[in-house]
């Protein structure tokens, strides 16, 4: 069997993810003369923060980076493309809507971003419940929310950003429920003076419907959201609404890095990101990581890390050095953010015995509560065995029970049979 069944391409630097980190890495690497390929699973570059669509208004910085990508002839952008597997140490198997192919690289930069931490509570599977960032993404992509009453709940500055996006699209945001205490949020806000841009942003997002020390008890409704019950200072309150957007901060997307054998940073209070050194190099030779997959910290930190990774990947250490101060500045911001919005223990009491933990396989919390760990829950109760492959319930179980999921196995996401068949052909061909 030859490899003719699956076409192959090659590049000097392969970048996975076209958010701020990936864009900065691509431009930096291309400036160093490398041929660069950027793959991204969204329809357009920009990542989650700079998502384009009929309901989006892209900031000037996002447009500038997109133009920079387009202007640079050494950069190939493959949108709508997912990583399926790593069939050889320097090859990734990719799939888009039309084809599957292999991409061989000399340097790889992982800019795989973060996903929202979604925690289960009664009613979280009802249509009308989305992530907070999820709501933002859906609205930008044209989801009509005009006239809808929306409650945003969870933790972190993303709640305010999601509320602002929904309001700009004509929704009535009736409550923003932040689980952190008033003291914690006020402390965070006071500290923003060191980052004047962020302080301004906080002011523009300020909202009279914002409440601290407030968490979801349940979302109510038969086949869609009708109301939400919130708990604040020992009192429950019911708010009628059409939609609930919830997010409890971000989890670094380390799936691909772990598949490739990259070490994780030391675990802290939250799920750890990929471990990187001063040059953004991971523990695997030739593989770098930048942006939220190394730990949550925002777009400015991602841009600085991406630029360092891109320059370092092509050996331009002098150019990389110019971004070190910016990285340190935004690392400090990230530390403050983590402290200000640390998740309260009470959130572990949100799900009830019959609340589904695994949305794909309909596994209730009671089924897995007595399990010894993730593997036990998976093998005996199918928790995490569905289409999302444990990305939602695995993160939740890590928070609820402290279970660390094992490194993922290929395929990294559901793919077409033809793609897998090609992978099998290749593996057979390589062995013979």
């Amino acid at each position, binding site marked *: 069997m030859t490899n003719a069944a699956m076409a192959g391409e090659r590049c000097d630097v392969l970048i996975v993810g076209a958010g701020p980190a990936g864009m900065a890495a691509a431009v930096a690497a291309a400036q160093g003369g490398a041929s660069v390929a950027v793959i991204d*699973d*969204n*329809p357009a570059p920009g990542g*989650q923060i700079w998502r*384009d*669509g*009929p*309901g989006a208004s892209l900031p000037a910085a996002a447009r500038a980076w997109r133009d920079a990508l387009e202007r640079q002839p050494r950069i190939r952008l493959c949108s*709508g493309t997912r990583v399926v597997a790593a069939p050889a140490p320097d090859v990734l198997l990719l799939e888009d*809507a039309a084809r599957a192919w292999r991409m061989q690289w000399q340097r790889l930069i992982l800019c795989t971003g973060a*996903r*929202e931490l*979604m925690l289960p509570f009664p009613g979280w*599977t009802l*249509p*009308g*419940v*989305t*992530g907070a*960032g*999820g*709501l*933002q*993404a*859906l609205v930008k*992509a*044209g*989801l*009509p929310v005009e006239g809808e009453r929306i409650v945003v709940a969870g933790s972190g500055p993303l709640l305010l950003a999601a509320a602002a996006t929904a309001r700009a699209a004509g929704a009535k945001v009736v409550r923003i429920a932040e689980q952190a205490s008033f003291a914690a949020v006020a402390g965070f806000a006071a500290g923003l003076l060191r980052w004047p841009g962020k302080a301004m942003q906080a002011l523009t997002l300020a909202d009279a419907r914002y409440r601290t020390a407030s968490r979801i008890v349940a979302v109510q409704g038969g*086949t*869609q959201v009708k109301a939400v019950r919130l708990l604040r200072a020992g009192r429950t309150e019911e708010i009628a609404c059409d939609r609930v957007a919830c997010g409890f901060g971000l989890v670094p997307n380390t799936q691909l890095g772990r598949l490739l054998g990259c070490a994780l940073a030391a675990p802290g209070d939250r799920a750890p990101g990929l471990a990187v050194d001063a040059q953004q190099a991971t523990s695997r030779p030739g593989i770098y990581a930048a942006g939220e997959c190394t730990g949550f910290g925002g777009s400015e930190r991602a841009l600085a890390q991406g630029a360092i990774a891109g320059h370092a990947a092509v050996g331009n250490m002098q150019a990389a050095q110019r971004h070190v101060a910016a990285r340190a500045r935004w690392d400090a911001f990230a530390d403050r953010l983590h402290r200000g919005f640390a998740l309260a223990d009470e959130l572990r009491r949100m799900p009830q015995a019959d609340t589904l933990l695994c*949305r*794909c*396989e*309909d596994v209730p919390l009671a089924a897995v509560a007595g399990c010894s760990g993730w593997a036990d829950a998976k093998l005996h109760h199918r928790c995490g065995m*569905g*289409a*999302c492959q444990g*990305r*939602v319930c695995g993160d939740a179980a890590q928070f609820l029970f402290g279970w660390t999921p094992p490194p993922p196995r290929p395929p990294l996401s*559901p793919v*077409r049979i033809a793609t897998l068949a090609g992978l099998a052909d290749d593996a057979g061909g390589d062995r013979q």
Partner: protein
Amino acid sequence: MSGAHVLLHIDGRPVQVKAGSSVAAALRVAGGSGVARTSVGGAPRAPFCGMGVCQECRVQIDGQRRLACQTVCAEGMRVETGR
């Protein structure tokens, strides 16, 4: 692309959306709560994460299973939900 629209079919019904809209948005434009599929236990599920992680919005698009939240509507597209 402002002002431009595309026409697609969801479960056989014509739906018009703004150009550049995702299929997830079109499910909602089509009416109801935007349900994409039915769960193992038969409950309705709609787009949840909005960014290709949760797989709750998977539908058949022109005969292929794809994520509604990461697919841009195209003229004449045929979408089948799992309801």
